[in-house]
């Protein structure tokens, strides 16, 4: 199964790969969400799902070569899936088990797969932006043409770390692409309530002008538009022309995260803030109509890239794969308690 890895032209195999990764992410996130009902108590603490963001995630990751790296936010499950990390180890991590990708020490918000260019995840909004910037500096020194993708949400673009990092990246012409996933919300706040540009009816990519950096706004629900744009930005970065800010617009289909309730009460996902808080169910319905996963499936079938049966077969394989991930996670034992004291120091 061929990942595009930044190929100039996407052939049918690549398109199918993109569809498969989007499906894998969707199914994985669905299974995480279902764990709250099916196995209450297994997932503790915060978890944040990427359903609705699949097109942007896969379209971006598809531009990377094997030596490239990426940093994300606590909403981090989708990227390593597209990158090739093992979903069994990821689910075990979210379940806090010994065979988790971080040995059960990190959890949902801190997934890491260093061997795959996924060097570590912070739970603090905006904190990963300087991290990605630093990795890009390392790449620049190494001079092997590596690029870093740095993902964050629209909420992070108000953080000081955003301004400081993009300014430096522009000044030093670092090989990095900043991908801002604007899903219209920052936890329970709508973007226009907290962002001066949005309140003025502008796209957030205009912020790049503060750094003399190219900025572009795209439809993050179209994986091919994402791929084209991010690929061009990656090309710029790789050839030493410096960073780009890509604002990828989308809608997240789940609430910000699960509800954290006192012990004894099952932790579950509430309804999306549009419904729960803002009383705008029609907004949510419209977003569901634009769900990127079935939309891309429909497009590939309509274009004759996939038949309906082939698409169904992929869906079945993906369901089976993620069922195995859940089974693996549940079967994995908890780590030995003394592991808590491991890996404090190198």
């Amino acid at each position: 199964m061929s990942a595009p890895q930044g190929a100039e032209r996407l052939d049918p195999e690549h398109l199918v790969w993109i569809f498969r990764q989007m499906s894998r992410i969707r199914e994985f996130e669905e299974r995480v969400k279902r764990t709250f009902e099916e196995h209450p108590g297994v997932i503790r603490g915060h978890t944040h799902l990427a359903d609705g963001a699949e097109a942007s995630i896969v379209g971006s990751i598809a531009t990377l070569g094997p030596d490239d790296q990426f940093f994300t936010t606590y909403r981090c499950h989708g990227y390593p899936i597209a990158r090739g990390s093992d979903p069994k180890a990821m689910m075990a991590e979210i379940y806090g088990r010994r065979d988790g990708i971080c040995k059960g020490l990190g959890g949902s918000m801190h997934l890491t797969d260093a061997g795959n260019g996924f060097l570590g995840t912070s739970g603090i909004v905006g904190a990963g932006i300087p991290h990605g910037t630093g990795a890009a500096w390392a790449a620049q020194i190494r001079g092997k043409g590596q690029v870093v993708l740095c993902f964050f949400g629209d909420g992070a673009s108000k953080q000081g770390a955003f301004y400081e990092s993009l300014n430096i990246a522009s000044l030093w012409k670092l090989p990095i692409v900043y991908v801002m996933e604007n899903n219209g919300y920052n936890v329970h706040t709508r973007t226009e309530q907290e962002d001066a540009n949005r309140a003025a009816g502008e796209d957030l990519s205009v912020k790049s002008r503060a750094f003399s950096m190219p900025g572009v706004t795209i439809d993050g629900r179209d994986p091919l538009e994402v791929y084209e744009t991010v690929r061009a930005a990656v090309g710029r970065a790789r050839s030493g022309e410096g960073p780009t800010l890509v604002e990828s617009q989308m809608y997240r289909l789940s609430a910000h995260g699960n509800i954290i309730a006192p012990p004894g009460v099952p932790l579950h996902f509430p309804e999306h803030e549009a419904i729960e808080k803002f009383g705008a169910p029609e907004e949510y319905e419209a977003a569901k109509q634009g769900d990127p996963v079935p939309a891309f499936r429909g497009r590939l079938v309509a274009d004759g890239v996939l038949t309906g049966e082939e698409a169904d077969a992929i869906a079945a394989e993906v369901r089976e794969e993620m069922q195995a991930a859940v089974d693996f996670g549940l079967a994995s034992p908890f780590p030995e308690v003394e592991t808590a004291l491991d890996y404090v120091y190198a």
Partner: protein
Amino acid sequence: MAHELPYIAAIIEAIQLEMERDESVLYFGQNMATTENEPFVEAFGKDRVRVTPISETAEIGIAVGAALAGYRPVVELYMAEFMLVAMDQVINEAPRFRGMSGGQVKVPIVLKAGYGFTAGWAGQHTGTLNALFMGVPGLKVVVPSTAADAKGLMATAIRDDNPVVYLHNYLLTLDHGDVPDGEYLVPFGEASVRREGSDVTIVGTGWTVDRALAAADRLAGEGIEAEVIDPRTIAPLDTQTILESVDKTGHLVLVDQATRHASVSTVIAGEVAEFGFGSLKAPIVQVTGLDATIPYSEPLEAYVLPDDDKVVAAVQSVLGTAPVTAA
């Protein structure tokens, strides 16, 4: 063989030697590397040595990212208080990534920052915040008090695979000392017994080590022999050496430039009270900064800080028969 250097130059010598030895070591920060003919730029080039804007969050975060990606950055922060702008990166990011990732990554960064410059630099530039960084799992903290230790601890800090907060005391900047030539490493977690004695143990860090030594000289004139210990690193902290000394002397005085509840001395006092209780012949006494933002006016600035007189008085109270009262 050794050569004499001021404290600040010894630190720079260590950075330079380590950058020569290992091309993954980087050095960057504000107000440096702006012209071609600065020594570090000349020696190591503008890839590895860079100037940054006033952006502490990004500076430290970039160091974390570059470290995750295989480099060993040294960040020149000038003042520990400037780290406060970026405390998320110092406490919540750099030391935690290794643990949270289950050991997949390491973050070998050095955050070099000066502290304690009580020379009229006023309330925001003169504090001693060293103990704030203790007790953060994954973070190491070093506080050299001599030129030789300044060099050896910086070299060790750079070679250490963990984030290290390297705190150099601004009052010691021009203090000269003999510094070993060439490669010189001082291990972490090994206190230095600066003066031997059997009547009382005095523990200080940074600038207060000299206060302890000066007090010890005066006390010797009264027939009191003080043992002066400098932990050199406060995380990891060599409590063993302190406990052994207290076992010998039975008396402990702790001197710290910080305020009482944010001091290294309070932590040591707790350790000795718990693990060395049987050795103590008198309560522990701490001589710390007073609880105020460091005032600008010179006599008040001196008033709030420990000094030789206060250390001598503390020793006398610990050894004397008068009851010890709370500060």
